[in-house]
């Protein structure tokens, strides 16, 4: 089918009219989408400014190095900060190998049968389970049945379970993105399945796995509900020294300060939020740096 060529010159008035309408529609959509994006950014900006105005003046080395106190001016965040750092490290130690192992099994080894499909569906569902439910599980399983008590270990194990589905899903995505031709090349040279996974699949997928894991960990560091459930304490005047010590964490400390009547504690809460945000930002930057590093290995 040949298009009807305009007889008089280059311009076709009918086409130009419709083209104008198309361009206008495009402009409209652009601004609607911009507005949608702006809502998110603006909210974040307002939130940050608000917290900064409230809390920035309270931020000081003493704030980071003091334990909680009855007097807001001398109360600090040391126990909660170290509690969070401990907890997140232990969580990573447990969740990373489990999650990556599960992802490798599901992607590289598992046959496509009903059992593995059942596992897959369950993992996807688990990622959507509210965190309070994980708190209940942690309380029953780790605190009581396994006798960990209200310890760091119980808290970290609960958090590990909570983020495990996310790590598995992110790792599977990353593993699936490794082209099949690389696997074929490796197998064709007489590599076993594990050698192929170890030397080719994992290195290629590593950046994605790492990013997914760190993002999952950033979620864990901000989680409060499961910790309240398993009874992480709010008034702790020491830094944990072992995995069976009781502990507190940043969001719990913040929650506690917010619920006090004295305005001084509200300032502390704002400062605590700034510390938590700083930790989160730090983790996300580490994720980005690691991703770029491992992606451009060559």
């Amino acid at each position, binding site marked *: 089918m040949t298009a009807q060529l305009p007889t008089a010159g280059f311009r076709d008035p009918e086409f130009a009219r419709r083209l104008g309408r198309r361009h206008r529609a495009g402009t409209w959509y652009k601004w609607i989408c911009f507005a949608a994006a702006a809502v998110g950014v603006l909210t974040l900006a307002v939130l940050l400014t608000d917290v900064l105005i409230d809390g920035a003046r309270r931020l000081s080395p003493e704030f980071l190095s003091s334990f909680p106190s009855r007097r807001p001016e001398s109360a600090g965040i040391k126990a909660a900060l170290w509690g969070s750092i401990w907890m997140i490290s232990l969580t990573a130690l447990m969740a990373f190998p489990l999650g990556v192992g599960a992802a490798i099994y599901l992607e590289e080894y598992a046959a496509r049968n009903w059992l593995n499909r059942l596992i897959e569906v369950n993992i996807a569902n688990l990622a959507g389970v509210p965190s309070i439910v994980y708190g209940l599980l942690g309380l029953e399983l780790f605190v009581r049945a396994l006798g960990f008590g209200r310890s760091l270990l119980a808290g970290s194990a609960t958090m590990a379970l909570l983020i495990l589905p996310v790590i598995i899903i992110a790792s599977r995505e990353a593993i699936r993105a490794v082209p099949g031709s690389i696997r074929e*090349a*490796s*197998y*064709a*040279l*007489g*590599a076993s399945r594990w050698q192929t996974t170890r030397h080719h699949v994992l290195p*290629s997928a590593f950046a994605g796995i790492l990013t997914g894991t760190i993002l999952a960990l950033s979620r864990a560091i901000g989680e409060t509900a499961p910790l309240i459930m398993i009874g992480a304490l709010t008034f702790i005047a020491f830094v944990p020294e072992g995995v069976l010590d009781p502990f507190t964490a940043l969001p719990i400390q913040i929650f506690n300060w917010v619920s006090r009547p004295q305005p001084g504690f509200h300032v502390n809460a704002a400062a605590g939020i700034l510390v938590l945000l700083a930790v989160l930002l730090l983790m996300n930057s580490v994720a980005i740096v690691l991703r770029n590093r491992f992606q451009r290995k*060559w």
Partner: protein
Amino acid sequence: MSAAPGPATPVPVVAPAPPAGRFKAAGNALEIRDVSVYYGDVHAVKNVSLDIPTRAIVAMIGPSGCGKSTLLRSLNRMNDLVVSARVEGQVLFRGENLIGRGVDPVEVRRRIGMVFQKPNPFPKSIYDNVAFGPRINGMPGDMDEIVETSLRQAALWEEVKHRLRESALGLSGGQQQRLCIARALAVKPEILLLDEPASALDPIATAKIEELLKELQREYTIVIVTHNMQQAARVSDLTAFMYLGRLMEYNVTDDIFTNPRVRETEDYITGRFG
């Protein structure tokens, strides 16, 4: 492939062993006996039997989708990796059935190397690409030497000897494909399978690969799938023509092209279909 002429299931006419005069003495590197491959319910390769003489270059031609790749991949157990694939029959290699249950596919693939249609170097250095196979197979000897020998065999050494530690992804398509050949040779296989190795390359790179295959023939048995009939005519000693999953004709290459005995072969080489 559209509108296949003739009967729906053409009957193969030619016996497994070709009249391969000058190859008789050397014996057969592979004897394919009644091999069928299924993908689920699809019968992709139908009862194929043929002998691959030692140090011959055997070309497999035929319209796309006729089962060339599938047959090739069943020779070194690559079809094991396809979940839905099922292989029946026998592939005899030194008297042993490679498709048999007791045979480890890892062992088979080390003895029978493979080069794929699209160059697929690992995202590693040129050196590590070649060294990977010998390393994982625990091959003895000086690795630098193995790497150099393999690259020389693949006619790539002179082009890359100053940049062995650079990424293989920086090579041209033709160089990448020769690297893949070097990589396959590094584990010292006896047979080399190539699945349309030049179809993604320009004519000059293609000519280099063809020249290389002629060179490699002194030490290796080579089976090459190609959709390019001029290529088959140029490089191969024997040609197998496949059609709709069946082996239609297998003969000395010159005879196949000058004097095809089956109508489908003639139609195909004269360009009437495919």
